[in-house]
């Protein structure tokens, strides 16, 4: 397939402006004649649905949660970047653009990233106007903090709940449009399949999660804002309901899936504590400012941390990366933790964890200062683990928390299915191989508030639409297809629960496609996953019926799709024979474990195209050109 990114001509800082002029407009009176479906109500979905409704389009918005306010954007803690330069410290749109391209280890599209940096400024304005209570200084102006290795203070925040406040702002804008009748909201509805008519996305089939009914919804365009697929790992910082189904079903209908192996692992999460565990909880990265990370020097050292003398401890980050020490970037410190655990030096009852020790900081600064800085985090930790981090070192371990990969989109955020747009974490576009802190919120809102309202207008104005009814043969066939899948899930009637399959898949993925990957391991996984999938369809048990509120059925459907997504991730990881950003292939690293990029052969996006059941998908390539940011190697020593 020919991938056309449709990047506008001209100098990078003029591309978006020029493109906005070149795009066709729908005249205000005609907007109400068009309808748009938005799937998902997180930052991207809610802001997109509200903004399009404000313009006059008729919008239907769907989410699996009981309310659009609960989308998992709400859990983001740290902040949102914007190139406001309010701190007078030399920030600019260009610098944010530069940092993001470099942070993504040169695997993102320059034009998209520059647009993101330009729009970052408008996002903050918009959110303040909506009443988002960002942190402020006594003078009444907005406060900033530095974040994720940036050398400027450009992160805006609302305590530790920035994602929540931004989402509520977008949610309230959405609710306003619902009240005005411009958006029809469908909570507790899960998209199970897109409807394509004449090759265009013209609707979706959803399951009403309360009654079990399958519904057909038709529109002129479909926007997916369904988030990431990181729950393929089972244990992740994602909400339990997050899933890849909408994206995966679109992939199987012709949307290319780009860079599926790019998954970010966050270094500071509370480790797994038991095999009943359902979820990993993130502790803010800011803890690494004062905590020291260590493990015992000897693998068999099972003494309690307090009994291990200084000379028997290995402060491995400080040892390996003397200049960055405990503040080494996310991917680097995650991998280092994995290495020491693999050596058998992990701590805690499971041996999968490392210490994050505040003893020195408490001695140096006093308990009061530490309590003031991290009190709420310490309390959260204590609540979960029943250990007091003031006296016992915290235990942390990396966990999956974002997927940079996603459906391939062009500059207009349109996938390879005409009329199917993808925004937010669900697309692949802006973060390359590694996302910087405080950039996810920025991208979700930029896509929703300021990109999709323009590009969708262009699509609608350029396209002629035939009126459709739910009785269109394609729509009927799609419903039948979904119905068949639901029936199949219920009729297997085996012995194993969906959870047990999901857990096993997660273990395979974490083992072979997690923080460090090898050819042998990925090949191993590519053998194990199809076998597990086969067993799933022979031996899964899904209680209950189709026509009722049935959480097991919902879950089983998602697990079935994860069993396919995981395979594509491994395939992508196998065929990307280089290390870049979050993707580390052990074959491609320096002697001391640093990633080695191969810009000659892999400076491109791998966009996978579905080729049919049982066939190997086609790996299409979008070449990435770096005209503005010079390709360079990252070093943190």
């Amino acid at each position, binding site marked *: 397939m020919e991938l056309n990114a449709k990047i506008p001509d001209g100098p990078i800082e003029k591309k978006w402006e020029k493109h906005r002029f070149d795009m066709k407009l729908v005249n205000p009176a005609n907007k109400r004649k068009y309808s748009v479906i938005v799937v998902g109500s997180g930052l991207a979905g809610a802001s997109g649905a509200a903004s399009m409704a404000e313009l006059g389009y008729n919008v239907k918005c769907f989410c699996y949660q009981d309310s659009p306010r609960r989308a998992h954007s709400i859990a983001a803690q740290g902040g949102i970047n914007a190139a406001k330069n309010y701190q007078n410290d030399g920030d600019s749109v260009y610098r944010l653009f530069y940092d993001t391209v470099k942070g993504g280890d040169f695997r993102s599209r320059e034009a998209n990233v520059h647009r993101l940096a330009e729009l970052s400024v408008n996002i903050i304005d918009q959110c303040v106007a909506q009443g988002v209570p960002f942190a402020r200084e006594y003078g009444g102006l907005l406060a900033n903090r530095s974040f994720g290795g940036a050398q400027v203070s450009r992160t805006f925040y609302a305590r530790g709940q920035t994602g929540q406040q931004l989402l509520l702002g977008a949610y309230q804008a959405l609710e306003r449009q619902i*009240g005005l009748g411009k958006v029809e909201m469908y909570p507790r509805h899960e998209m199970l399949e897109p409807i394509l008519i004449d090759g265009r996305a013209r609707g979706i089939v959803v399951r009403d999660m309360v009654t079990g009914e399958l519904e057909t919804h038709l529109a002129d365009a479909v926007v997916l804002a369904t988030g990431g697929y990181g729950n393929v790992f089972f244990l992740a910082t994602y909400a339990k309901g997050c899933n890849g189904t909408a994206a995966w079903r679109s992939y199987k209908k012709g949307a290319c899936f780009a860079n599926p192996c790019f998954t970010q692992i966050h270094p500071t999460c509370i480790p797994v504590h038991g095999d009943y565990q359902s979820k990993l909880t993130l502790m803010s990265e800011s803890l690494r400012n004062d905590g020291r990370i260590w493990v015992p020097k000897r693998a068999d050292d099972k003494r309690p941390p307090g009994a291990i003398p200084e000379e028997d401890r290995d402060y491995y980050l400080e040892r390996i990366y003397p200049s960055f020490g405990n503040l080494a970037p996310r991917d680097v410190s995650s991998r280092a933790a994995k290495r020491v655990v693999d050596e058998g030096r992990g701590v805690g009852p499971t041996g999968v964890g490392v210490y994050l020790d505040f003893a020195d900081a408490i001695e140096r600064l006093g308990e009061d200062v530490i309590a003031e800085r991290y009190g709420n985090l310490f309390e959260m930790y204590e609540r979960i683990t029943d250990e007091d981090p003031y006296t016992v070192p915290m235990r942390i371990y990396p966990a999956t928390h974002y997927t940079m990969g996603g459906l391939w989109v062009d500059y207009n955020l349109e996938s390879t299915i005409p009329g199917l747009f993808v925004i937010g974490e669900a697309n692949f576009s802006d973060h390359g191989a590694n996302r910087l802190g405080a950039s996810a919120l920025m991208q979700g809102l930029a896509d929703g508030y300021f990109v999709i309202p323009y590009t969708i207008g262009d699509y609608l104005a350029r396209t002629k639409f035939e009126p459709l009814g739910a009785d269109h043969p394609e729509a009927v066939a799609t419903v039948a297809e979904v119905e068949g899948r639901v029936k199949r899930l219920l009729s297997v009637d085996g012995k194993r629960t969906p959870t047990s399959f999901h857990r096993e898949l997660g273990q395979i993925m974490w083992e072979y496609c997690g923080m460090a990957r090898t050819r042998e391991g990925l090949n191993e996984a590519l053998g194990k996953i199809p076998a597990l999938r086969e067993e799933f369809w022979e031996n899964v048990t899904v209680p209950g019926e189709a026509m009722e509120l049935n959480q097991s059925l919902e879950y089983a459907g998602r697990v079935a799709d994860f069993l396919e997504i995981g395979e594509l991730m491994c395939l992508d990881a196998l065929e990307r024979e280089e290390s870049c950003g979050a993707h580390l292939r052990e074959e491609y690293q320096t002697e001391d474990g640093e990633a080695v990029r191969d810009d000659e052969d892999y400076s491109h996006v791998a966009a996978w195209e579905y080729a049919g059941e049982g066939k190997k998908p086609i790996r299409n390539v979008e070449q990435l050109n770096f005209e503005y940011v010079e390709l360079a190697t990252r070093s943190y020593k």
Partner: protein
Amino acid sequence: MAGIAIDVAVAAPRSRIAAFFGSTVGRKMVMAVTGVFLVLFVIGHMIGNLQVYLGPESLNHYAELLRELGHGGLIWVFRGTMLGAVALHVWAATALTLGSWAARPTGYRRRQQYVESTYASRTMRWGGPLLLIFIIYHLLHLTTGQAHGSFVVGDVYHNVVAGFSVWWVSGFYILAQLALGLHLYHGVWSMLQTLGLSHASYNRLRTVIALLIALVIAIGNISIPVAVLAGFVS
């Protein structure tokens, strides 16, 4: 379940007054404002009553004075106001209570474990009707005399002493005053909250004021039947 086409609360615009009296918050304010009148009355009434300790002339003269104010007209204006306040207070309370009962048609199997509410706040709805019964009895007993064994028009002191000499009458009065104390304790605090009189620096003061008013009223009023029974006032 279809998508939400939002149910707009009330299609036709209502007048400001209808909207106010129709809303739960408006009704609470009716309770609070009438509550202000009733609290002031209860305080005044207690101060008047305490003149029983100054002897028959003083109390009877005070009663006479009230009856004669404004050529005997003011007392009727006053009685009308109080009657109105009580009526509105009771109406709002009833309407709100019925609404609250309807708001939870199925209760919890395990009784709720209260954390913050007080015995006083939870007994408002039982204390209220009890006080209403008491007020009616009290009017029949000491104002009009129908419920009094030896009522003498104009001799308030006699009526009080004779009335409270019956132990179970005093008992009922004491019980009612305890209920009044509880009602005031939560009522005064709640009144301030409902009228929006809240400020982080003074919020503790609200509880203190409520407690003080409740204690003073209850102790002051209870002292009279106790004094009569004890033979201190005769």
